[in-house]
């Protein structure tokens, strides 16, 4: 946290995104507001289908063109609204200013090109360098992520899963981006390799003074690497604050449910506290607060009226009609 400034790097205002599929409209993101300071790492958490990837793809403007539509909002990055940029301008921004790492490293790697060539290509997109220097820089990037430079002429299939993901990280970092978006970068990895990759990301983040959005299901990973956290449910952020504040004083019933669902390593629990019900149908979201059919605290107002956000203390934001503070904080 010592590296965060107060300057906003990214400011998403009132973003709404829809997908059209089989004649139905999926409201993937609804009126989302979120900002990120320079040097900050934000954890973006929520269950499958909550809209995390959609938000990330919107920032980079790489949503699938046919079924998707941004229906409202602005995405300010370094003082400019990305949604008003031309395709060509966005191409410049991607990679150079904002990079993204996907869950499956193979989506970003070309199986028939050597890793060296692929890193060189990324560097070459934004920096005109003589061939030899390009190769030297690619070798340095590999070393940065803990892969020996001798392996520069190897192909992706010659690397293990963790190493492939490290190559992808090297590619993402090779242009020294201001913002790195990592979409579940370690989900496909073993815990031991995950620990390696997280350690690497922590160090690189410090070294490059980069801002980062870490999309994950894992509240443990957020605790490890993030400064702030946004909890997403059915297309919107229901709770946001510093990791410290949210983990010790969460106020939203869904956040509480998330924490209750994780089996504890310190205590023996006969049964886990579970929340009934399922993720809502995104083509037909419940009225009022979309969490109300599953919420143990729901009252009559919850089905009728969508709750507004409120601040429980400066910087800690909750979207809920009830005030659970006092009643249900984390022990």
């Amino acid at each position, binding site marked *: 946290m010592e590296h965060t400034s107060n300057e906003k790097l990214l400011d998403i205002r009132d973003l709404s995104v829809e997908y059209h599929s089989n004649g139905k409209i999926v409201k993937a993101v609804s009126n989302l507001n979120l900002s990120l300071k320079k040097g900050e790492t934000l954890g973006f958490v929520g269950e499958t289908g909550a809209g995390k990837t959609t938000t990330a793809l919107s920032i980079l403007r790489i949503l699938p063109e046919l079924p998707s539509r941004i229906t409202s909002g602005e995405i300010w990055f370094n003082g400019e609204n990305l949604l008003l940029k031309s395709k060509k301008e966005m191409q410049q921004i991607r990679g150079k200013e904002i990079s993204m790492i996907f869950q499956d490293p193979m989506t970003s790697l070309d199986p028939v090109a050597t890793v060296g060539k692929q890193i060189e290509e990324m560097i070459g997109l934004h920096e005109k360098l003589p061939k030899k220097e390009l190769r030297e820089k690619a070798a340095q990037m590999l070393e940065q992520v803990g892969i020996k430079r001798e392996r520069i002429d190897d192909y992706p299939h010659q690397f293990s*899963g963790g190493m492939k993901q490290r190559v992808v990280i090297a590619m993402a970092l090779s242009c020294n981006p201001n913002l790195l978006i990592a979409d579940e970068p370690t989900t496909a990895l073993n815990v031991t390799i995950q620990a390696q990759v997280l350690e690497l990301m922590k160090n690189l983040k410090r070294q490059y003074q980069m801002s980062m959005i870490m999309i994950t299901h894992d509240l443990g990973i957020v605790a490890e690497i993030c400064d702030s956290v946004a909890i997403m449910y059915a297309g919107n952020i229901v709770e946001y604050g510093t990791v410290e504040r949210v983990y010790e004083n969460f106020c939203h019933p869904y956040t509480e449910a998330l924490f209750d669902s*994780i089996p504890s390593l310190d205590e023996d629990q006969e049964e886990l506290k579970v929340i009934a019900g399922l993720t809502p149908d995104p083509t037909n979201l419940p009225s009022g607060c979309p969490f109300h059919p599953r919420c143990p605290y729901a009252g009559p107002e919850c089905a009728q009226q969508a709750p507004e956000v409120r601040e429980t203390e400066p910087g800690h934001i909750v979207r809920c009609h009830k005030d659970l503070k006092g009643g249900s904080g984390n022990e």
Partner: protein
Amino acid sequence: MSEYLLEVKNLKKYFKTKNGPLCAVDDISFGIRKGETLGVVGESGCGKSTAGRAILRLHEPTAGQILFNGQDIVKYSPKKMKEMRRKMQIVFQDPYSSLNPRLSVQALIAESLRVNNIGKSDKEREEQVKQVMDVVGLEERLINSYPHELDGGRRQRIGIARALILNPEFIVMDEPVSALDVCIQAQILNLLGRLQDQFNLTYMFISHNLSVVKHISDRIAVMHLGKIVEIADSAEIFNNPRHPYTQALLSSIPIPKVNLKRERIILEGDVPSPVNPPAGCRFAGRCRHAMPVCKEVCPELKQCGNSQVACHLYPAEENSVR
């Protein structure tokens, strides 16, 4: 008879590859008591699923004995094994791909019965299907739905119902909650716990998620590259891990708490190939305690305090392993 419902002795499963045999499971021995859950953890490719499948003879074991209720089922004829399999079931990880998309919930669950020639009529089978749907918490109205219309949690309940309808004694759970969101995962874990109590089931629970395994298991076996490197009571593994690999695994779990201070063991080095694995300890290349002997001699599983550990750091004790 032994105290175990299932006893596995020196089980090996090698796959043929063009570079030589791949030692997916290489001489493992353990027992599971009736009503107990044995958790099996380890990195991807260490042989967890292969072990689970070899025990049900879905893969034919290369060598070893599998005693179920004292009988070596490796020797059973295919016909006898088929009958046996009613008592020994498996639930798979991926509730998306393990169910035939063209069958309805009713047909999927009844399929188990039909394959095993159970139930006199369709009517009788339908009654049984409804009963088991109730037991696993599937709403009766879903009986004519198709898997793609259901969420992951409900699909996994179908998988559990298919196993349960045959009244098994033993179920291999191969990553049954790994594909699910934490909230749904918690629902399924609770269900599995209740079913175990209700029907006195014995589980072999395979997972790479250590907090899930700790929650559900009485004992835990840690696998590394085809071998069991440590096996002990769940609490013992977590409070007093002895094998350096177990220690590294535990220190790698991200814990959802702030301001936690703990030492993390970051493993360096490559995992060796299961084809022609190294002669000594297979963890030696990544172990920070490795000694010269480790590269030469493969450590045997030995009793050490309340655990069995395969590591040269621990000298043999009097009461060695079965």
